[in-house]
């Protein structure tokens, strides 16, 4: 068990009552503004002392009010990327980055300074004072500082919110590697479903101080209703695959999944690499006939297994493609017109372009499987 | 109401060492005459300079003829009213538990007696008791020996305290001070001839317009006031009544 939380804490009129367990190597905390995400992370890091409850991280009891146990924050070895940076104004960027290192036993220093600096693109800032950094630069330095303290658990409170997409794209793989190889479990606060879908192995959904859902990412993400949002619907199925071939000429990669073959933009993984593939419900077009002459390269055949709840004009159709569950969000009108009743054979059409880097995670599945053992 | 009091009261600027005696005398006068007196106690030097700066004093009662001379030279007092009212004597003191016996005679080797200890006294340039003490030590030939072993204070009471607390082995203070402190012992009294006469001159200020100022001065010089001064150990100068 990586994280086992059961706490109650009052703050003014707000009460956080959180109870969940997470076995995921990256636990995403999701919830609207003011739902208690930061409060929860503060409790885990030891910045606040909850009124009641118990927090166990990686088998270590950090808090147990029934026994009066409370590990002070400096002994938790929990790296914390704060929502508001909190860089030390009297130290320059380099000193900020190396701050945690002073307090890390020498043989536990694993994170490479140069590597972290290069990854976060802050090499040119090393001699600057935090007060001269831009918002996003500050946030990157704060991430670097937490990473370089070689924590046993990493808490990140919306670390990427103030970063541009290109920068995020560079950082995601690093977080994945950290999650998968570094052996550092991560708790990530985010309100970007795309981010969560890409990175999380477990998800905890908070609302008004209460945990409304928690579990493995693949399961939680299927409940598209939890992630209602105005932008593209990001929820959908997470399926497992393996690289089988590269089509160098078109810069494409062929991935074999149980549901069928998928052609996606070229991936930098050798043939045979296990992958997690996200099929956003919104990206799937259903066709009752085998389609022809389409620019979309991916067609998966399956049967309608059921339809979910309606969200306004749209409804989620759950397909069974060779045992793999897919979710397609279509209009109710189409369901009626195409008569998409359970058992009906349909073809799921997905553009290759839909598989952007966010939809194709690293080998998170290895963990997912570990996790489910 | 403060300024009204000032308008009504006779304001006396007096050396701080006179506080007990003058408070008693003032109270007695008030009882006699029904008139109020307000007495400002400070160092004679400060008082003289304040009068120079236009202080609303009616009477100046100095512990030191030098500062009265200063006032006189600046025309701050009415010379005809000046009188040397009180006298005092200078004593050598030691802490109560000290057994030293020191006869004050010429050729006195005070330095040797002090050893590593210090002689407490008022500042030899600034405090009247210090000035008198220095003169006496010079007269007795002990000055050069002790001048580096002094602990000079800004008032004579502080010197008394140093001896009383055993910080200094010896001290030179007025008899009036020494007599009152059970923690010190008077070792010897400086013979009169060793220092200029210790007198406390008093005078009306030149700017005094208070009708009762002269009355109060007269009261101080009268025999009615004498007991209050003597009670504090002052010598009331016999010639006081006849002073100009």
């Amino acid at each position, binding site marked *: 068990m990586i994280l086992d939380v059961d706490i109650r804490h009052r703050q003014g009129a707000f009460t956080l009552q959180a109870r969940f367990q997470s076995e995921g190597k990256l636990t995403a905390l999701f919830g609207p503004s003011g739902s208690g995400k930061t409060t929860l992370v503060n409790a885990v890091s030891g910045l606040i002392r909850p009124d009641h409850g118990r927090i166990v991280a990686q088998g270590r009891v950090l808090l147990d009010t029934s026994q009066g146990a409370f590990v002070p924050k400096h002994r938790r070895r929990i790296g914390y990327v704060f929502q508001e940076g909190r860089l030390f104004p009297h130290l320059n960027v380099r000193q900020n980055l190396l701050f945690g290192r002073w307090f890390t036993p020498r043989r536990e220093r694993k994170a490479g300074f140069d590597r972290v600096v290069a990854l976060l693109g802050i090499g040119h800032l090393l001699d600057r004072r935090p007060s001269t950094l831009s918002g996003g630069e500050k946030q990157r330095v704060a991430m670097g500082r937490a990473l370089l303290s070689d924590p046993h658990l990493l808490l990140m409170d919306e670390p990427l919110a103030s970063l541009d997409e290109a920068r995020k794209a560079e950082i995601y793989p690093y977080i994945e590697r950290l999650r998968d190889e570094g052996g550092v479990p991560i708790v990530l606060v985010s309100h970007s479903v795309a981010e969560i879908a890409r990175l999380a192995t477990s998800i905890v959904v908070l609302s008004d101080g209460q945990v409304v859902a928690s579990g493995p990412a693949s399961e939680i993400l299927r409940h598209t209703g939890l992630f209602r949002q105005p932008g593209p619907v990001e929820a959908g199925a997470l399926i497992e695959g393996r690289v089988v071939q590269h089509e160098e000429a078109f810069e494409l990669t062929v991935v074999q999944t149980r549901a069928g073959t998928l052609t996606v933009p070229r991936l930098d993984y050798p043939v045979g690499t296990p992958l997690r593939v996200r099929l956003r419900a919104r990206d799937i077009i259903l066709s009752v006939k085998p389609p022809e002459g389409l620019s979309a390269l991916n067609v998966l055949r399956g049967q309608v297994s059921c339809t979910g709840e309606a969200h306004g004009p749209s409804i989620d159709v759950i397909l069974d493609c060779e045992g793999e569950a897919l979710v397609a969000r279509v209009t109710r009108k189409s369901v009626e017109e195409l008569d998409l009743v359970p058992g009906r054979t349909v073809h799921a059409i997905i553009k290759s372009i839909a598989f952007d880097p966010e939809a194709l995670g690293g080998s998170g599945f290895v963990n997912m499987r570990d996790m489910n053992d | 109401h403060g300024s009204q009091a000032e308008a009504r009261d006779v304001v006396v600027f007096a050396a701080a060492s006179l506080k*007990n005696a003058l408070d008693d005398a003032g109270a007695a006068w008030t009882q006699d005459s029904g008139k109020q007196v*307000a007495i400002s106690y*400070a160092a004679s030097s400060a008082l003289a300079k304040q009068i120079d700066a236009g202080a609303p004093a009616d009477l100046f009662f100095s512990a030191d003829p030098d500062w009265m001379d200063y006032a006189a030279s600046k025309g701050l007092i009415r010379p005809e009213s000046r009188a040397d009212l009180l006298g005092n004597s200078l004593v050598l003191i030691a802490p109560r538990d000290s057994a030293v016996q020191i006869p004050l005679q010429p050729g006195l080797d005070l330095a040797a007696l002090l050893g590593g200890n210090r002689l407490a006294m008022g500042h030899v340039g600034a405090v009247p008791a210090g000035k008198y003490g220095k003169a006496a030590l010079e007269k007795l030939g002990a000055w050069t020996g002790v001048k580096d072993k002094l602990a000079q204070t800004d008032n004579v009471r502080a010197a008394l305290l140093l001896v009383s607390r055993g910080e200094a082995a010896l001290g030179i203070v007025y008899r009036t001070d020494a007599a009152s402190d059970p923690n010190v012992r008077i070792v010897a009294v400086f013979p009169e001839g060793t220092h200029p006469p210790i007198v406390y001159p008093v005078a009306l200020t030149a700017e005094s317009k208070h009708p009762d100022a002269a009355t109060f001065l007269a009261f101080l010089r009268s025999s009615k006031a004498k007991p209050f001064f003597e009670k504090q150990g002052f010598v009331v100068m016999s010639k006081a009544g006849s002073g100009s």
Partner: protein
Amino acid sequence: MEGLSPEEWAAVRLSLKVAFVAMAASLLPGIAIAFLLERKRFWGRQALDVLVHLPLVLPPVAVGWFLLIGFGRRGTIGAFLAEQFGIVLSFRWTGAALACAIMGFPLLVRAIRLSIASVDRRLEDAAGTLGAHPAWVFLVVTLPLILPGIIAGMVLSFAKAMGEFGATITFVSNIPGETQTIPSAIYALTQVPGGEGGAMRLTLVSIAISVAALWLSEWLARRVGRRVLAP
């Protein structure tokens, strides 16, 4: 222990009045000068800074002496004030208040300066973008934020005024009921045999007053601090 004599009570009352007036009167100039010194660069800034610190650096008696020369009845400023406004300072309680105010001024200014230096200027910028003229920004943003420093400065100024002796007695002498503050009364009592008891009583009164003042200031500071400082 016996109670205080009427004269001693008068000294206590006077000390309270003097300390309060000294503190109150130096507050506005203190804030203004602290602001100038901390925020502005102007010709003579360094000299002003030194001037403000002088009462600390010089022996109090010297300060009293300068006051006597400057603000005495025959001093340039004193004569001017007396003629033009009828304000007489020398040998009045107002003079004692002036002496105490001046002696406490460096403490007041320093405390306020420290607070001004720690104000987040970005908040002032924000107020500016919301349409507030710099003077308003000072009043509704800077001033509330530096309240802890102002309170600290007031405590220091008040406490200093309660204890001030050298400059006061030199400038306004030691006239009972008019300029005899607690320290002057203590001084007079220690200059004669048998005065220790009275001196000790007055010392205790002084301590009691300062306890009350400190308690009040802490209470204020807590109230204000909770508002001003992020947790």
